[in-house]
């Protein structure tokens, strides 16, 4: 499969000294959903802006759909779709007028415009509000309109810059369902930036973790999590944790045991087969257990592993948001993968 996006040593320095992106290299295959994951200020949007010819790189080069972003910006803009993190629709125009304008700007043939606009309005559940001014739209409707504007010309590569920022879990899941369906039908490549770990995990084929302008890790979500050394079994002994720790270390398959606040975290390739052995070891030592739980490594832990710090809590959604979102995204996952 050919590469839809190739970046080689892409860098961007602002005001001669602020290095927003520092020599990032990666490639995205045609039809892939590729996520750029990182906290605010990591360099995600700057990278996306360079790939969409909005910003010129300070160093390095990039091609999108075979076009050099620096030398063919005009042709490039005709082939890509771009959804910004903020609403860019004209609030003094109706939803339909915004789409008609976008159709003209992106070169949709005049005779096809009306049909395409109606089709997108229907698909994105905006048909009933199509002739209302955008200033009366809700946040979710604006996001859907933004997506419609981004895909009005059926782009080969769709760039999404934190597209679900500010949406509730239901809105986010709905948004990804639409993108997933579109991708399934058209085979378009999707490049997205996000700081929602669960979102990247749920919708991306591959992820690059970017921090301080550099890619610190890249791979499929599973690969990244596997690099952590497998599952984590958390053991809460009723008695002395220190007494149990050597016994757990001695169990076959255990790669590491850490203790914190009387709780033991046991790393192993396969947590579900380890649990009976943990229970057995504790029983043989006469130590009762308050609980044993198994966790597959999450992207939070991946981020911690590769950046040396935790993903800031204020960057992502709340725990409840994540739970609701994950439940919903599972339902739409099949459309994306």
């Amino acid at each position, binding site marked *: 499969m050919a590469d839809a996006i190739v970046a080689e040593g892409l860098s961007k320095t602002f005001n001669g000294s602020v290095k927003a992106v520092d020599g990032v290299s990666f490639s995205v295959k045609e039809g892939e959903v590729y996520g750029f994951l990182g906290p605010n200020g990591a360099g995600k949007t700057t990278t996306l802006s360079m790939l969409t010819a909005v910003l010129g790189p300070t160093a390095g080069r990039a091609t999108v759909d075979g076009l050099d972003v620096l030398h063919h910006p005009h042709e490039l803009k005709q082939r890509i779709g771009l959804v910004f993190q903020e609403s860019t629709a004209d609030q003094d*125009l109706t939803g339909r007028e915004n789409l008609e304008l976008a159709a003209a700007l992106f070169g949709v043939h005049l005779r096809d415009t009306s049909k395409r606009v109606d089709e997108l309005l229907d698909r994105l559940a905006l048909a009933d509000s199509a002739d209302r001014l955008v200033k009366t739209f809700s946040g979710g409707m604006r996001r859907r309109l933004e997506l419609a504007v981004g895909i009005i010309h059926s782009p080969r590569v769709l760039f999404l810059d934190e597209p679900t920022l500010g949406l509730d879990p239901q809105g986010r899941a709905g948004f990804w369902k639409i993108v997933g369906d579109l991708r399934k039908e058209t085979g378009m490549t999707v490049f997205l930036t996000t700081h929602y770990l669960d979102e990247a995990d749920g919708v991306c084929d591959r992820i690059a973790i970017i921090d301080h302008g550099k890619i610190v890790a890249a791979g499929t979500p599973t690969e990244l999590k596997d690099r952590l050394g497998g599952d984590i079994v958390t053991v809460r002994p009723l008695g002395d944790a220190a007494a149990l720790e050597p016994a757990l270390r001695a169990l076959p398959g255990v790669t590491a045991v850490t203790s914190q606040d009387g709780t033991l975290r046991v790393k192993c390739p396969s947590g579900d087969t380890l649990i009976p052995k943990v229970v057995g070891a504790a029983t043989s030592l006469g130590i009762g257990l308050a609980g044993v739980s198994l966790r597959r490594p999450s992207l939070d832990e991946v981020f911690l592993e590769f950046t040396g710090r935790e993903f800031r809590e204020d960057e992502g959604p709340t725990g409840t948001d994540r739970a609701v979102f994950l439940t919903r995204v599972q339902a739409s996952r099949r459309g994306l993968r």
Partner: protein
Amino acid sequence: MNVRRWSALTKRELLKIVRNPAAIATGLLLPILYLLLFGQGFNFTSFLNSPYLTPDQRTQLLHTYLLGAPDYFSYFSAGMVGFVGVTATLFVGANVIFDKLFGTLKRTAASPATAADIFGSRLVAGSIQPVGLAFLVLGLAILLGEVGLAGLHVTAAVTVVGAAEIVAAILLLSLMFASLFLALGFTIEQPQTYFALVNAINLPVLLTSAALYPWGAMPAWLQGVASYNPVTLAVEVLRIDLFGGAFYPYAAWVYLLGLIGWAIAMFAIATFLTQRALAPKV
């Protein structure tokens, strides 16, 4: 320039104008206030009606000071009609700044539309509107005279060519100032800075033109400055076509040539600045 993109963007600009009457009112406010207040309270006609003046002296004074206009209000209201070409174009630059703030310009700049499409659509939409508004002000000035107030009295036979010259003068003045305000809009980020600059431009432009002052009452140095002021060039065309050109050194087309020069110069500067502002930041 791509015609489809340009026309779609122009349609967008015109829709925004139609849906925002406040912007139109802003453009009309200053000229209308001048007509309704300043013009009514400051009409030199009363001075010229003095019993100490003979009819010949009165005519002489009109010729010297008002270059053939029948009274000061008529002279000054022609100036105000021309000045609409400045005040009604203010919003074009403000719209650019608000489009930056609301992200709309970012979307357009990220599309295949070129700087020429974006600039051209705003220039055309911003220049057409003042022509319509100028005729609205012209109609109001004439109407004031019909209801017993000081009003505009057209004393020359306005020909088709004369009417075309008036339209051309207002259009050229609007093109020039729309270019200037667009250049400011694309260059400046904050609306406060833009409006401060616009105010710093508007009043000096008005006060160094012949829109308000009786020509004969202006000191020679101010006449010299005013001769090159584009507002003067435009209002002189209006006055020649509305009151006759006997007391003007040049024919209307000469003033139009001057306006064309101004419009081209400002268009060139604005095009350069807009292209620079919309180019990918390297």
